[in-house]
């Protein structure tokens, strides 16, 4: 479904993506992790061309992103994207946030679009919030609406860019469980996240990135038990036992 070959990207002098090769097959859940600044967010944003690349090829659902004949808007409609900051439209109700794209792009009649939206809202556990405005929702609820909005175009692939990083701890669970259900339903997913519990339980494969390169690629069991690189071991140590990292700093 997703194929990256020799992808390079520079921001001025900074080499943010350095020879990225990866593949996501249908129904697979790929988790991308790594320290901040490792290029993981940039990578996921290149998959629907929110970020252009300088070199290499990306093929999504059989369409080459670099090909001039590819209708990029059509491709984006097939690929759902969930942002760290939710990015709901504040001037529209939850219902209209979800139905905007289907109605304007697919020309779905309003009633049909709203029926589908109600089903999606039920699926993310927010059916009673259809008339609310984003500002009236908690962060976790906003993110679940954002997932419903991305699903409204019936995408074949879902991309998540740190979907729980902006959330209070007690709201992370509700978003992760929606994502877990989605994975179980057979959705092809690529998820940038620090939630290692999610990676362990849901992912088919984990990719570890640092400084723009993929250092490690393994099934979660193997990745967590026997990470190959020092950098990955360090990262996991700090993430899984945060107190450990804190005490060493204090000792130093």
């Amino acid at each position, binding site marked *: 479904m997703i194929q990256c070959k020799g992808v390079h990207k520079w921001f001025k002098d900074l080499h943010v993506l350095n020879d990225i090769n990866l593949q996501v097959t249908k129904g697979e859940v790929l988790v991308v992790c790594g320290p901040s600044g490792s290029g993981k967010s940039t990578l996921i944003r290149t998959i*629907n061309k*929110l970020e252009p690349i300088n070199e290499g090829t990306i093929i999504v659902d059989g369409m080459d992103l670099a090909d001039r004949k590819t209708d990029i*808007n*059509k*491709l*984006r*409609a*097939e*690929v*759902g*994207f969930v*942002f760290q*900051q939710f*990015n*709901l*439209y*504040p*001037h529209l109700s939850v219902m209209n946030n979800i139905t*905007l*794209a289907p109605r*304007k*792009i697919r020309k779905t009649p309003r009633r049909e679009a709203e029926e589908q939206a109600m089903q999606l809202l039920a699926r993310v556990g927010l059916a009673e919030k259809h008339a609310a*405005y*984003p*500002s*009236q929702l908690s962060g976790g609820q*906003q993110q679940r609406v*954002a997932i419903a*909005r*991305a699903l*409204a*175009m019936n995408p074949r692939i879902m991309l998540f860019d740190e979907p729980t990083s902006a959330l209070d701890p007690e709201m992370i669970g509700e978003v992760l469980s929606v994502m877990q259900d989605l994975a179980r339903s057979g959705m092809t997913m690529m998820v940038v996240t620090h939630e290692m519990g999610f990676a362990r339980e849901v992912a088919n494969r984990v990719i570890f990135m640092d400084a723009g390169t993929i250092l490690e690629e393994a099934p979660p069991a193997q990745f967590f038990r026997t990470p190959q690189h020092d950098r990955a071991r360090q990262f996991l140590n700090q993430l899984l036992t945060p107190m450990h990292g804190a005490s060493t700093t204090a000792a130093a």
Partner: protein
Amino acid sequence: MDFQVIADNFTYFMIGSWPKGDLGGVALTIYLAVTSCLLSFIFGLLLGLLSVSRHRFISLPTMLVINLVRGVPLLMVIFWMYFLLPAFFGHGFPEIRTVIIALTCFTAAYMSQIVRAGVEGIPRGQLEAGTSTGLKHWQVMLYIVLPQGLRNMIPSFVNQFVSLIKDTSLAFIVGVSELTHVATQVNNRTMAYPTEIFLFIALVYFLLCYSFTSLSRWLEKRLSWRKSV
């Protein structure tokens, strides 16, 4: 002070010699302001959107025209139009329309920059969210950016319109009988009451502008929505 002169000429101040003759005074001032406001809103919106275009061959020439107009006094724009339009059309051009075109050009240039700021003030994430669902760029603008941006622009639009009300007074230079022109006429005829007349005129301009500002404050409250955190 003798305000009898105001009472004697009150209808003339308000509507000119209408209905027997031409419309003038306050009524014409309002007509000039409202017409130019509506027109400059439309053209300002258009110019503003062109100036934030992603294509440089559209945005650069647009900015050039906008800056050209903004760099010239309004009086000069009115003169331009006054001498240019007849030359361009090959026949005389009605003064009122000349002034409306001049006011529209001038105000649209300013409005366009309000639009530009309003559009650029919308967080990038909003555009990206729309784009990522497959909306085309113009759809993202129309359904996501403009509805949010326009509400933010209301206070600046109101400022601009209040300036516009006052700017109509410059129409007297080409003999359009709006409020200021009518006032000078009455002043020339009566000779003895300049203080009374121009105090009154100032008060009328103030009331016009103030009532409009109040109206728009009410409108702003009605249109505001709670922003998401």
